[in-house]
């Protein structure tokens, strides 16, 4: 079972690497999908570069979203901030109800075309999963543990950094993984506002009616997302073991 999972992971990684470095390797395989006379492999720009930008945008958005969500969650769980909890919840929820395309459409007039509006949309999108998970992680710390921490003489700051956050880490990481997956898949749409991501390949395929482009772009995005989600999942399980739940 474990061996099969590893074989699958390595195979996915190998295929993705080959496609990104030498996409023409798949020319013969993709040719039946391309319209007659049209190229089967996307070569207008380097797919490796597109993949790098794709991952970079998603990573920056996830980091920004995580930082914002953690700050909100920590503040909302302090005595001084508890009154703001319902407000933060509804703001984070509202961020999630906008379709990403709508956020892009609103962002473009103010920041222009390119990567910037995509980054804004992805960041807004990423806040809610981390916020909700961090909240439930922090609120899930046993009251007896917190009581004992205070009783042992930890300051409020030490209580947060040494007890609450380490114990909430598995939940927080689970939110980060969700957020990263959403960012990786939604970054694709960024290509509609000229962000250079792997979505460009899919959109080029849609524009020229080239199924080969659509398939290779979608497959590359899917493989990238699955691999990153898998790696973050492993990190999450490691943190859960460290938090004493393994």
């Amino acid at each position, binding site marked *: 079972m474990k061996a099969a999972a590893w074989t699958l992971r390595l195979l996915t990684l190998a295929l993705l690497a080959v496609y990104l470095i030498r996409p023409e390797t798949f020319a013969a395989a993709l040719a039946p999908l391309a319209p007659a006379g049209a190229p089967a492999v996307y070569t207008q720009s380097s797919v490796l570069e597109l993949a790098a930008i794709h991952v970079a945008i998603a990573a920056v958005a996830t980091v920004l979203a995580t930082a914002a969500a953690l700050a909100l969650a920590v503040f909302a769980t302090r005595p001084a901030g508890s009154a703001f909890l319902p407000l933060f919840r509804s703001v984070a929820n509202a961020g999630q109800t906008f379709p990403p395309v709508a956020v892009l459409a609103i962002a473009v007039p103010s920041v222009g075309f390119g990567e910037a509006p995509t980054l804004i949309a992805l960041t807004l999108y990423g806040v809610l999963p981390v916020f909700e998970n961090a909240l439930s992680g922090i609120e899930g710390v*046993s009251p*007896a*543990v*917190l*009581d*004992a*921490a*205070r*009783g*042992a*003489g*930890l*300051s*409020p700051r*030490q209580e947060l950094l040494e*007890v609450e956050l*380490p*114990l909430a880490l598995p939940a927080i990481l689970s939110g980060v993984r969700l957020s990263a997956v959403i960012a990786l898949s939604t970054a694709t749409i960024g290509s509609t506002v000229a962000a250079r991501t792997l979505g460009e390949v899919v959109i080029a395929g849609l524009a020229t009616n080239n199924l080969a482009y659509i398939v290779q772009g979608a497959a590359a995005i899917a493989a990238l997302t699955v691999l990153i989600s898998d790696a973050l999942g492993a990190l999450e399980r490691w943190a859960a073991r*460290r*938090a*004493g*739940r393994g």
Partner: protein
Amino acid sequence: MITIERLTKRYDDDVVVDDVSLEIAEGAIVAVVGASGSGKTTLLRMINRMVEPTSGRVLIAGEDTRATAPHLLRRSIGYAIQGHGLFPHRTIAENVATTPKLLGWDKARIEARVDELLSLFGLEPAIYGPRRPHQLSGGQQQRVGVARALAAFPRVLLMDEPFGALDPIVRAKAQADLRAIQRKLGVTVVLVTHDMDEATSLADRIAIMERGRLVQEATPVEVLTHPATQFAADMFGADERPFRLLSLKSVADLTQPGEAGGEPIAADADRREALAALLWSGRAAAPVTGAGGERLGIVTLARLVEAAAAKAR
């Protein structure tokens, strides 16, 4: 050691602790008992400022607790609670080292103290030190909780139903251990409990709380024989009072000259055990033996029954 002066805690119009004054002697074990909602836990938590009093003050060794920041104050006061509250992400050794680490002890001193405490509580440091709390039994976790509370040589140990989650056999062992360790370390213990057996067997003095007020503070014998209120009398249960009274003293001073057969009773056994032994074996008297097994005399059923009466004091 601890002086509680006119301590009151009010939540809006709800008076949880009402004008309580109490003097706790150094090295004593004081059990605070009462029904749930009587304010006993709140009283305890005001001592280490987990709850801030509405009015009144607490002095520890003559020093007002308000003179120190709460988290610094708590480093000098042990605190053990029901359900132990061990940090699940830390090893047993790290858990015990919590307060010494906060106080900035050096590594060697912390290690030595952790080993000493784990040994004291019957947990082999090399085996249990590196484990996580979830790998220990309930009784072991509870002992680690008390060891952690004692790590930084506190002058005062506050305990809130520390044995509440343990099964009766493990609890009896934990209570005996606490008594022995307390005698050894000389720490002043304030113990909140609703278990009257625990209170009478462990405590030097019992403080009875009723609806936020301290209604009686006296030795277990006084509380049993001269309860200040109906509630104080009811706490012990009318059907159990004579037996609790018997359990407070040993058979040594009931021993009289004479001869009796059957299984002997140790002089340091409590009177309740002696009565049970006589009733169970259907004898009117039993021989009493000293620590070395020598005959000291006999104890009779009649003397035990007499000693169980409240007016005998």
